[in-house]
């Protein structure tokens, strides 16, 4: 019996040590942690693409660090744009929902907003999701983001100044709180004309739903 308790204590100590080491594998605070959330909204309700008169609006709550979101953005979104947005059926609204387990989600969202300030939100959105290796390494992605910003066509000096200012942190936090209030718990989560979308998030499924809504 004594041996059993020794094994149990050893196991507990080993497990505790592993958890402790894993918890220390956190990003260095400051530059790579991203903007500090500010609970305030400037009334901004998300970047959109598509016609203002589109009969269907899809709101997407997304996390730039989420692999599922990246998969959707790279595999499904091109067809959604081609079949639904460019044809005037759907207007797509992007809202941030940075998850707590993602240390760089707010940083990435802020980077997209800084590009958006220069009219390049969707270019940066696409770049961040297309080269998603930064989200797998757990390392400071600042340099990669600078390169993505340049590729997206933004003025790098203005982008860097924007990133240092953290001025869009409030927007991002407000977006997250909005998601909370709407019952969003994971990403990506979609609302189609205000109704939570529970189906498989594929371009075909969105097309079938949007077409049926547009016909009403």
């Amino acid at each position: 019996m004594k041996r059993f308790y020794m094994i149990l204590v050893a196991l507990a100590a080993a497990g505790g040590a592993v958890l402790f080491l894993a918890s220390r594998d956190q990003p260095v605070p400051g530059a790579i942690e991203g903007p500090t959330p500010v609970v305030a909204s400037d009334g901004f309700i998300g970047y959109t693409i598509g016609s203002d008169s589109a009969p269907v609006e899809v709101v997407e709550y997304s996390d730039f660090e989420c692999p599922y979101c990246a998969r959707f953005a790279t595999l499904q979104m091109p067809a959604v744009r081609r079949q639904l947005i460019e044809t005037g059926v759907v207007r797509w609204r992007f809202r941030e929902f940075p998850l707590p387990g993602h240390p760089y989600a707010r940083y990435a969202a802020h980077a997209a907003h800084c590009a958006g300030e220069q009219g390049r939100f969707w270019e940066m959105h696409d770049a961040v999701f297309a080269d998603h290796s930064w989200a797998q390494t757990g390392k400071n992605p600042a340099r990669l983001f600078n390169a993505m910003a340049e590729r997206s066509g933004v003025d790098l000096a203005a982008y860097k100044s924007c990133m240092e200012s953290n001025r869009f942190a409030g927007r991002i936090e407000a977006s997250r709180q909005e998601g909370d209030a709407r019952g969003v718990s994971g990403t990506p989560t979609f609302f189609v004309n205000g109704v939570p979308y529970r189906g498989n998030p594929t371009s075909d499924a969105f097309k079938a739903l949007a077409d049926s809504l547009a016909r009403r």
Partner: protein
Amino acid sequence: MRHRQVIAVLALVGLFVSLYLWLWKIGLMGALQCGAGGCERVQTSEWAVVFGVPVAFYGVVGYAALLGASLVGLQPRWRERRTPTLVLFGLASVGVAFSAYLTWLEVAVIHAWCRWCVGSAVIITAIWAAALVGLRRRA
């Protein structure tokens, strides 16, 4: 008596697995160590939260209860009694059913595998089997 020892060890391992996933979910861990990213897809899906509480936290509570019940069952005054085994079997049955549901979600709905979740499902099934053995041995 051996089955309660086995359950205690397995419950402790399961406790650490669910604790890791829960701490990650609430932002106290670094990047999730999982390999191909299936864990994140599962953990960030809408099914990773039930009644506003991360699913992993239910695991923490469940494994802690199993660990506690098995340790109580190993104390001299409870050793010959059947009640701890019944409690362990009941708890493990609930755990197996919940794990089966979560595994089905991974396969049929989320279309991604979380290795830690599969590990937890194997652990709870082994606990259930050990409890069943204990139940058939009467003590």
